[in-house]
């Protein structure tokens, strides 16, 4: 059902994986500074990545709010505890993604 797609297991899984990829890439940039030297386009890549991450963050705000409204609305028949906990976990990952995006900003020059 399209209405419950945002709170479906597949979408939640996709959302978590997207957040984890953002956090992984940022951790890689932070802990492997020689990447900037091994590949000279790393800085340009980080600029592109920043804008993609920015889009992910802004879209996440809307998606997370819609997910919270759907899962906690009285019309919702699905009382899955797993989904409720998963959304909270995604909110925590979203905080890490915001932090990661702020860090990526320092890794390229405007």
């Amino acid at each position: 059902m399209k209405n419950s797609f945002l709170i479906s297991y597949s979408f939640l899984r996709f959302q978590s994986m997207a957040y984890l990829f953002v956090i992984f890439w940022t951790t890689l940039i932070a802990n492997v500074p020689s990447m900037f030297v091994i590949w000279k386009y790393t800085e340009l890549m980080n600029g592109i990545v920043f804008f993609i991450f920015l889009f992910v963050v802004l879209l996440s705000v809307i998606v997370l709010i819609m997910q919270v409204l759907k899962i906690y609305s009285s019309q919702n028949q699905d009382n899955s505890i797993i989904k409720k906990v998963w959304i909270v976990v995604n909110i925590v990952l979203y905080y890490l993604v915001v932090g990661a995006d702020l860090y990526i900003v320092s890794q390229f020059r405007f």
Partner: protein
Amino acid sequence: MIKNIWAAFLIMAVLLPMFLFLNPFAWGMRRAPEYVPSVRLETVLEQMRLEISQEEQIQIDTYNNTANLWYLRDCENKKLDSLENLNIELSEIKNEAFIEEKIKKFEPLIQKEIECKCYDSLVFSYSVHKEAKADTKDSDTLEYDFQKESEPRKVVIGFKIRKQ
């Protein structure tokens, strides 16, 4: 009721970072990159300061250098048009000969700890505390001394970095 309160709390939690993230003033408060010496270079500079402190108390600063975050990366990727000098500033001193001897002693040690291929020269600068001049007005010629007696004399010593 509790469900609604919890839902409202989660929504506020999602919106909270946006006050920082979308705030242009927060973006303007980012710390500008600055030159950060390596741990080994700091150790050598501290040894130098301790040896000099046997005669006089000084401070050794490296803040007056291009931020090395991007400078060294551009150097490695060969994007620099010209190499810069590494500036090491000492505070005001009195015994110039002693300081020069220490600088000559530590210069090769410092060169070992910096990226030799990314810097052109190693430059030491310091001010010499000038003693008051004696009154020597016994000649007919006029002497113009534009430097005030209390003003310290600035000295700059440069060493070309040997590429390794």
